[in-house]
């Protein structure tokens, strides 16, 4: 059944491609609503709930979520649901796991059940095509539309939004771009690698598609094998083996490209720039901060990190500042009465209070004894030493 669906999708996609090639004109005559957020004025009419901050940054509408974020498109949309039935979204998600598209028609006048989808959260801009006509409620004139973001709140970058008719050319072009997106080096990448997607044939990942192809090859080979003479069986086995190897190589080439892009990213962010501009994927300028700590904390000192358990930086500072020791429950007794250094890295929640000469939280609760700032790295990063 699944195979039938795939074949049907492939056939339909190819047929549509053939029929649409002569008329491959991007509907960019903008007969449908498009927002690409180039200038601050482009935010006029948009309303957002649950955010700490928002604005235009680098050609994208940036939302810094605090609670559940809900974004409403400008009022008076008057979308023709029959003609414009796809939502093309280009966005980058850091935290939320689920996005729901909702709308209201002139007829219903109330918010209707939503179409949910799961975004990729790999710090790349991704393009999503949401088929709104999947919902029976996508009828008549659409007055109100919006997006709701579920899961942990965080930063959302919206590059562009279009409500438009389907265009196979744009769709394939987007998916081709998606297919070649590099793998992001994150601190969890060591546990699992994602496969590139080939969304235009049923949302399958490349690896699942190759698995399917291998099964098809196997079935065909089994039929031939059972009907062939002993002499040609060897040829069948060898041929099947070679086809499997080719399928393997196809994936390997794409994977090698991902690995190459990681090497390239490390080169451009960490190796090539001068020391004061070095960053590292997922860690930002952390290694610059490590050098700063090494310069300002005497070797072998005992230090604490505020807040405690500040992953991913606590274990890394513990390692890179060794033979300095990060004070933990297990070794607290060992270091009793030794003056402590406190490290704050990119944490606006805890600051030095000049009045009490202590590090305090936002609620003015003291975290340390009296002391002084040894060195300041930036507004939210410093080294403090207790007297």
């Amino acid at each position, binding site marked *: 059944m699944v195979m039938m669906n795939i074949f049907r999708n492939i056939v339909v996609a190819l047929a549509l491609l053939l029929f649409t090639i002569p008329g491959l004109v991007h509907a960019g005559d903008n007969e449908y609503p498009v927002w690409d957020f180039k200038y601050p004025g482009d935010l006029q009419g948009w309303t957002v709930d649950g955010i700490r901050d928002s604005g235009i940054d680098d050609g994208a509408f940036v939302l810094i979520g605090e609670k559940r974020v809900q974004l409403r498109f400008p009022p008076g949309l008057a979308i023709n649901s029959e003609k414009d039935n796809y939502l093309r979204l280009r966005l980058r998600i850091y935290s939320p796991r689920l996005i729901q598209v909702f709308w209201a028609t002139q007829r219903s006048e109330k918010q209707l059940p939503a179409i949910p989808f799961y975004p990729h959260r790999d710090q790349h801009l991704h393009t999503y095509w949401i088929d709104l006509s999947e919902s029976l409620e996508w009828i008549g004139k659409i007055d109100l539309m919006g997006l709701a973001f579920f899961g942990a709140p965080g930063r959302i970058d919206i590059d562009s939004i279009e409500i438009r008719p389907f265009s196979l050319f744009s769709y394939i072009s987007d998916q081709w771009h998606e297919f070649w997106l590099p793998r992001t*080096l994150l*601190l*969890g*990448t*060591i*546990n*699992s*690698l*994602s*496969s*590139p997607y080939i969304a235009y044939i049923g949302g399958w*990942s*490349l*690896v*699942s598609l*190759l*698995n399917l192809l*291998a*099964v098809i090859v*196997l079935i065909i080979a089994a039929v031939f094998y059972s009907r062939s003479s*002993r002499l040609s*069986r*060897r040829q069948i*086995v*060898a041929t099947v*083996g070679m086809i*499997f*190897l080719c*399928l*393997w*190589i196809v*994936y*390997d*080439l794409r*994977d*090698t490209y991902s*690995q*190459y892009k*990681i*090497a390239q990213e*490390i*080169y451009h962010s*960490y*190796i090539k720039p001068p020391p004061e501009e070095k960053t*590292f994927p997922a860690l930002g300028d952390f*290694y610059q901060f490590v050098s700063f700590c090494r310069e300002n904390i005497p070797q072998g000192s005992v230090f604490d990190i505020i807040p405690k358990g500040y992953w*991913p930086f606590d*274990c*890394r500072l*513990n*390692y*890179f500042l*060794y*033979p300095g*020791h990060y004070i933990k429950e*297990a*070794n607290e*007794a*060992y*270091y009793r009465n030794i003056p402590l250094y406190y490290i704050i890295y990119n944490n606006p929640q805890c600051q030095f209070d000049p009045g009490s000469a202590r590090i305090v939280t936002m609620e003015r609760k003291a975290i340390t004894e009296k002391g002084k700032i040894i060195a300041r790295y930036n507004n939210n990063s410093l080294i403090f030493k207790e007297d």
Partner: protein
Amino acid sequence: MVALNILVAYIIPLIIGVTVVSMAEGRRDLFRKGERLAIGFAIGLGIQTMYIFCLGLIGIRFTFWSCSAPVWPAIMVNIFWLKTGRISLRPGSATLLRGHRCAGKILVGIILLLISIKLLINIFISFNSPAYFDDSITIWNYKAKVFYNQRGLVKDPDHPDFFGGNVPKYPNGIPLFKSWIAICSGQWKEWTVNTISWVIYLLTGVLLYYGLRRWHSAIPALIGAYLVMSLPLFAFHGAFAHADIIVGFYLMGGVIFLYRWMLERETALILISAGFFAVAGWIKDEGLILFAGGALVPLILYLILNKGSWKRGVLLPLTIMLFILPWLITEVIFQFPIAVATGEYFKLEFHPEAIMIIKRFFFNTGNYNIFWLLYIISLFIAFKNGRKNKIAYLVGINILTLATALGSFIFTPLFKWLAPGTTINRAMLMVIPAMIFTMMRVWGILLEEE
């Protein structure tokens, strides 16, 4: 200069290992030259780090001279063998490109090119990035840095650097080797201590190649090496300082030589197999658990069905115990928990939902290419040919090792680590290299039969 020092850091365990392998081998020529070097380094790494650990236990400071002591008698022995003509310095004959037709040569060229690109990328990343992922930071490199800075083992439980500071209960094979590299180079440099990851990545391919080469021509052997080196998650780990592929390498070596022993009955082979399994346990506790869960039952079955091999068969667990003894004694004396997981996980409970999660990881993520499908196909072929060439034992070891690894996620509270996928795929890296050996062996036999 640093490069030369690192070379020394690698050559010393190589000499120790090659000498031990040659001693076990006697006058029988069981290995090709390249194979002997790969086995020699693998075994030598284990012997030298266990020796350094013993130095630490008796309170001797880690210096170049104290840590390299075993190499001097090994060099003397080798000089003697050179004089008597038992060994020679002549390079082995390269057969990789010889004797193929044009298409074969092109295939060999493509595969070598693909392997080289992957290896070079991994070397580039490894040379140019500090230890990055959590386990490297908190365990493998941290402990190594502590051993290097202390120039020994701290045995005072109240000291923050007690047995490497973080997770003292973890075996110390890799941290001690990294601290040995730092001792040789005279400084702690991230790129030097992390070289072991891509060296083992490369050696996995080399060992698999020679393992298959025993029975098959160069092309299937090279394809086997390519499959393991291009398994996406395995290749990714080759650039970063994690220990899972190192355990995978040692378990694969253990399986290859145990299988060879079953076919050839040479005592040296079972000793070397034991050496590989033992070092796997000295790298991570999982090494011993997977050996016990995967290889013991097929071995016992083999000994029952092949009377007269008991004496040599028991050499396997005995050698492992003997090698790992200093660490086991340490665990008992300092009351380290021997199990991988804590007591709360020792409960039997069935999680059927685990099966779908595992299926998704195996067939829909980018960790394994199409390996799992190919292995399942190989199993069907193996059913047909299982009795020939003792393939059934090989498959049996694979399945039991896999069951041990997966079983812990399906039948215990460890299930909670399955859904987020933090450990399951890394656990598979320990199992898969040996499975690729089996897979290629099965296909090779099928081709020869037909």
